[in-house]
């Protein structure tokens, strides 16, 4: 059934010897991690569901259900269908979390590889099982650490291929989606400020620092330090808030 190269066979043996798992499970874990032993262990131990639950044949069927007619990936139509099957709106934040699990490179696209690894990592091989996972994925947004990962993942996911920065409209859409989870009271002001004063794409640094800003600086800006290393766009945002009387003068 398996025609493995010598290197891969060695890794498989090693993996089975250490984890005591079956060949099938071992193979799944190694394939999911692209034959990196270390990450295969991570997958094996962190997601116990993997053990024997996922059936590659089912995944294959599932993938074919959504696959685009002309390319070997899932594109917009497939994703709409998937959303339909999962009974969520395409702009539901849970789709971002799902994409994060799949390590998807771009918005509205899943490659076969991404689809397989993602679902294997989640330990599901049917729409029904995936739907059951949705509350779990929503809960992941509440986790500080995971939220940050998802937030930073969102930048690369949402930006145009080949671009270094994120188009402003997309960025604003993503922020509204993401900060709805965090209840950051300044998010609307931030978006208004960008539209009025900036009107340019957003750099990765500004993107990631904004989350830090939202998390560490309280909405009255009492602990904001103008001498700090905040990106200049955030400094200008603070000036904007003060100038427009949204926040009272900093003492």
């Amino acid at each position: 059934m398996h025609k493995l190269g010598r290197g891969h066979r060695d890794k498989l043996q090693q993996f089975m010897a250490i984890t005591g798992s079956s060949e099938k499970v071992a193979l799944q874990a190694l394939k999911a991690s692209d034959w990196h032993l270390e990450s295969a262990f991570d997958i094996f131990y962190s997601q116990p569901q993997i053990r024997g639950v996922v059936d590659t044949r089912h995944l294959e069927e599932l993938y074919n259900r959504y696959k685009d007619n002309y390319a070997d990936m899932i594109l917009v139509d497939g994703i709409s269908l998937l959303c339909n099957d999962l009974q969520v709106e395409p702009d539901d934040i849970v789709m971002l979390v799902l994409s994060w699990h799949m390590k998807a490179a771009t918005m509205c696209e899943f490659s076969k590889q991404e689809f397989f690894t993602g679902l294997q990592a989640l330990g599901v091989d049917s729409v029904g099982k995936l739907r059951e996972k949705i509350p779990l994925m929503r809960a992941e947004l509440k986790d500080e650490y995971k939220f940050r990962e998802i937030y930073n993942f969102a930048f690369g996911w949402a930006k145009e291929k080949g671009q270094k920065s994120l188009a402003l409209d997309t960025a604003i859409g993503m922020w509204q989606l993401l900060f709805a989870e965090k209840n950051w009271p300044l998010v609307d002001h931030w978006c208004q400020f960008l539209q009025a004063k900036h009107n340019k794409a957003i750099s990765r640094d500004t993107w990631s620092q904004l989350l830090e800003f939202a998390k560490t600086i309280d909405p009255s800006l009492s602990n904001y330090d103008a001498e700090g290393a905040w990106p200049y766009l955030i400094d200008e945002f603070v000036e904007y808030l003060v100038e427009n009387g949204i926040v009272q003068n900093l003492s």
Partner: protein
Amino acid sequence: MAMHERKTIDLEQGWEFMQKGITKLKNILEGLPESQFSSEDYMMLYTTIYNMCTQKPPHDYSQQLYDKYRESFEEYINATVLPSLREKHDEFMLRELVKRWSNHKVMVRWLSRFFHYLDRYFIARRSLPALNEVGLTCFRNLVYQEINGKVRDAVISLIDQEREGEQIDRALLKNVLDIFVEIGLGSMDCYENDFEAAMLKDTAAYYSRKASNWILEDSCPDYMLKAEECLKREKDRVSHYLHSSSEQKLLEKVQHELLFVYASQLLEKEHSGCHALLRDDKVDDLSRMYRLFCRIPRGLEPVSQIFKQHVTTEGTALVKQAEDAASNKKAEKKDVVGLQEQVFVRKVIELHDKYLAYVNDCFQNHSLFHKALKEAFEVFCNKGVAGSSSAELLATFCDNILKKGGSEKLSDEAIEETLEKVVKLLAYISDKDLFAEFYRKKLARRLLFDKSANDDHERSILTKLKQQCGGQFTSKMEGMVTDLTLARENQSSFEEYLNSNAHANPGIDLTVTVLTTGFWPSYKTFDLNLPAEMVKCVEVFKEFYQTKTKHRKLTWIYSLGTCNINGKFEPKTMELIVTTYQASALLLFNASDRLSYSEIMAQLNLTDDDVVRLLHSLSCAKYKILNKEPNTKNILPTDYFEFNSKFTDKMRRIKIPLPPVDEKKKVIEDVDKDRRYAIDASIVRIMKSRKVLGHQQLVMECVEQLGRMFKPDFKAIKKRIEDLITRDYLERDKDNPNTYRYLA
């Protein structure tokens, strides 16, 4: 003489003999008639003591004699000295004391000689106080202890009398105070504790009283005169009768009361304080102020602060003045730096001369005042006048001095001196890079259009700039000057080439200045469609240049060219000196009589701005070589032009000026771009060596590195840091976003 033969002397008998000697001594001291001691008397007395001390016990009377020695003093003091002192007062008491003390010293000297044998054995063996010391101690314990308070008061009251201008007996005071020193037997405790402390206290009180009146009544200069006089007198006083160790303490007290206490009140006096002195150029008073205030702790700081304020105000007034003058004549060309601004720079130089002289003379070159002067100039030198930065003004000022027929007519020495001062002023300007850029633009004009008046001056100011701002600052400018020298050589070899290659000669005189791209400001290139005649010239030169070098590329800047052309007008033929642009436009009319705006523009391949400018110079300005239809003052795209064959002028040769485009905006943009590179380079340099660095430190080091050329704005630095993050030169530390890491 054998010992056993000697007869034993008992105490009473021996002492009786001694008593006679002592009484005689006392009589001498009291001035009673008495014969002097003969050496025989002395010998007898000494021998008696010797014998009484060397007898075998129990007849060794050393201890008894030692006691009696002291008792003799005590008895004399109690019986004679004290009563005589007690009945006298004040100065008389002082005189008596001096006399008594000197008598006492004589008595000690004599008696200790009589009893000298005690010193040699008895005292030495038992480590007792020596005879001399015992004698002096008696005086101290009995006389000094009783009356030192009275003496002190009397002395102080005499000093106060002298301070009030009375004559006193200084010698007496000197003698009295010597007692305080001598009585300490080598230690200054008596002088310091029993006299000096009270004297200092009294001095403080005295001057505190004086100062509180003077500060109300006197003007600041008068007060300072008095203070200086007082200090001089007190110093004098020390040299005449106080102990030299008192000088420092005494002067400190006086300075404290007269100056320190009232320092700010004195400096701030409304019509005569430091401000007023500066305003009225009271150089002597200011020097005095420096002399006085440099003595008190932190005394100069407020003075230098006021000095700084004053200079800032004066300078700011100059800025305001120039600003007003500029806005009054705004109707005229407002972007061209005019005479007013020229005057402004002159005035700033004068201001600097004046106050630098103050710092050097009145304030004795003190660093605090140099700093104040620098800070004051930095404030208003960076303000700029009527939209022109001071960097631009200084560059224009230099240009006016260095160019032919500039507005300043000066001798060579005066030019050198002025240039020196301009360079000094440059130190106060934070945008040195902006100055360099403007200077380079102007220098290029001077060199290329042969407007520079004197090569030596050009080189000399570059040397001065190099000294002050470093080699990097002037390297391009020096390159420009060198380029021009090379260009002249090049031109002569080009002419030789033409002479030896007759077939190549285009029939038009051509001068080409070859420049090195990096040194010169950037210009537009290859924009103009050259007329055929000139294309030929260019080809010929290219051929010539190929023979000299292989790997160099020539780029032609027509916008900098000039042409001399002959205009065949009906009245007479005239020589026109025009720019290459103008010449190209005029030559178009050799082929057609009448051309539309758009035809001209298409044939010349120039932008609207350039076409409007040059057509305006040919048809709407002083010399109307072209007739315009309709005949208005402005050039419109619908206009038509025709050669004006009727044109004439009383001269045979005329120069038709083409006003230069305003380059200010471009210069500022260029500088801005250069700054971005400079900040990038600086950040990368710092991070390369430090690898990991906090935001604030990075910003600080960056400002420090670049401060020599310009003051980078924090926001600009921040933007550059973010740009470098985007370009993967840096990253933020994962755990601390205030810290950056260098990505090699």
